[in-house]
């Protein structure tokens, strides 16, 4: 990352113009894009995700879930062995009732791990707003922010305007 980069932001009112801008920019070799949208739009997502690995949230969920199952069975079996009380003529370690604890903890740990994933991977909470953010992006406007060397900013501005941006700013 060179210190010498600048950001150009294009504000769009439509899904198709936003898509066009992303495609044009990619074609011209601008890879460092940030796309803002008020709602997740599948077409934009597909276009952006094309060059990215799959989100790793599910890995967190899996690890959390497996940890939960293990904890559930460990807690129940271990404490039953500490209190070796026979009830109803059954062995202190009776698996069927422990499945319930195992299941609940699978969901609990899996859910909390998913939350953790969202915070870690999505970098939340975000303490200060990005310089390219505009409050209209939670209303009805899309934004494409491009990080590029200052000498190419002019190109980017023309490109964004050409794709149909309502407003282009540096």
């Amino acid at each position, binding site marked *: 990352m060179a210190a010498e980069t600048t950001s150009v932001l294009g504000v769009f009112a439509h899904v198709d113009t936003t898509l066009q801008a992303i495609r044009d920019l990619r074609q011209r070799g601008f890879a460092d894009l940030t796309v803002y*949208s008020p709602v997740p739009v599948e077409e934009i997502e597909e276009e952006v995700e094309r060059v990215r690995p799959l989100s790793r949230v599910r890995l967190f*969920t899996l690890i959390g879930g497996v940890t939960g199952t293990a904890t559930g069975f460990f807690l129940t079996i271990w404490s039953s062995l500490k209190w070796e009380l026979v009830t109803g003529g059954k062995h202190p370690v009776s698996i069927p009732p422990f499945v319930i604890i195992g299941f609940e903890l699978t*969901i609990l740990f899996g859910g909390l791990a998913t939350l953790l994933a969202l915070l870690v991977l999505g*970098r939340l909470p975000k303490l200060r707003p990005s310089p390219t953010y505009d*409050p209209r992006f*939670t209303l*009805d406007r899309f934004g494409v922010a491009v990080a590029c060397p200052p000498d190419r900013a002019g190109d980017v501005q023309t490109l964004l305007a050409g794709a149909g941006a309502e407003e282009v700013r540096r």
Partner: protein
Amino acid sequence: MNFQGKSADASWADVNRDVIRTVGMPGNTYFAWMCLVGLTLAAGLAAWPWQIYVGMGAAGKRTPQMWAMYITTFVFWIGIGHAGTLISAVLYLFRAKWRTSIYRGAEAMTIFAVMTAGLFPLIHAGRMWFAYWLMPYPNQRYLWPNFKSPLVWDVFAISTYLTISLVFFVIGLVPDIAALRDSATGVKRRIYAVLALGWEGSDSQWRHYRRAYGLFAALATPLVLSVHSVVSFDFAMALVPGWHSTLFAPFFVDGAIFSGFAMVLILILPMRYLFDWYTYITDKHLDAMAKLILVTSLVLTYFYACEVFTAWYSGDHFERASVFAKATKQYAWAYWLMYFCNSVVPLIFFWKRARTHVGILYVASILVLIGMWFERFNIIVPGLAHDFYPYTWGTYVPTLTDSAIIVGSFAWFFLLFLGFIRVMPSLSIVEVKEVLAHPLKHPRKHDAHGGGH
């Protein structure tokens, strides 16, 4: 196919405007309702120390009726919560688009219902400052953590349910709070800015968000089915006639969804009127909910028939006697009231007009809630009133103390809900926008494609 009906006309900016205007300083009517709810809650809050001072006898608890109205109401509130998770998770996985305009209200209902339900085991425990003994951590207190007890399963199920529903709910709120932040000014803006966690709707945020949301829905779906099954095990694992049945898990889950949808209607209909959300909550939504109430009612009626049939077919003397006592003895009025409210009243929804008629929907929903409260009452109170031998038979009579606490619990629920709708968006801004037609400069042929998913 467009499930939003009229709202296809609304633009994205309209959605922001229509939701954001509901947040803020309310009028006098609102405060009047708050006062009423607050006073009712105060009565419940006054009754509770009295019960601690006098003892559980003040709440009418004496053998064999140790569970009575507290556990009845506990199961009732847990059941109410289920519709919220069903709408937010199950219908999300099924991509049912009509869920978008009701899911926020329903999810808030879930959280507050579970928070209300959670009070009852504590109140019922009497000395609630020992409530932490319920948590079976490996302990130095020489308490036996009995993982074979349904009551311990309950602790795990309910606390997991509350945690996961809360996380799911908050995650859904974040992008909407960001929209509130961007339209607010001054102190409000600062508060919403903190709560929005710096959400900007950038692609890197959305991609993880969407994946996490789907996974939450996938986790919450089996959870919601398990929670009421576990609650039903509190009964089904016991040997009491009328309780000891494998039917209980699906029976409870179905009843929970049934009563939950009735509560959703009770909350959504006034909101639609007061906030003027006719564009978003259309007749189609009411129709869909009424149909779900009808289906769950029919399934419930089938379970009622099964219950009676198995009692007869088992040839078990005590089972038969229990059913006979429920239908004919001191609690017969509650038994037949339950049948009327849960099996007869919802039949009106076979009539198309009734499914969208606000008055009919409202009255039917209230009757359904009464019916479902009495269903749990009928399991617990008459069940314990007439078990194996006459020596243990006994009638329960409510007292002022436990009645005040029960009524107070409704006030507590409504206090939370009324508070919520004035500070948070009670209609999901993002999800409603998602199902509207996306803005296109060059509209394609299949124009009203209804968006993302």
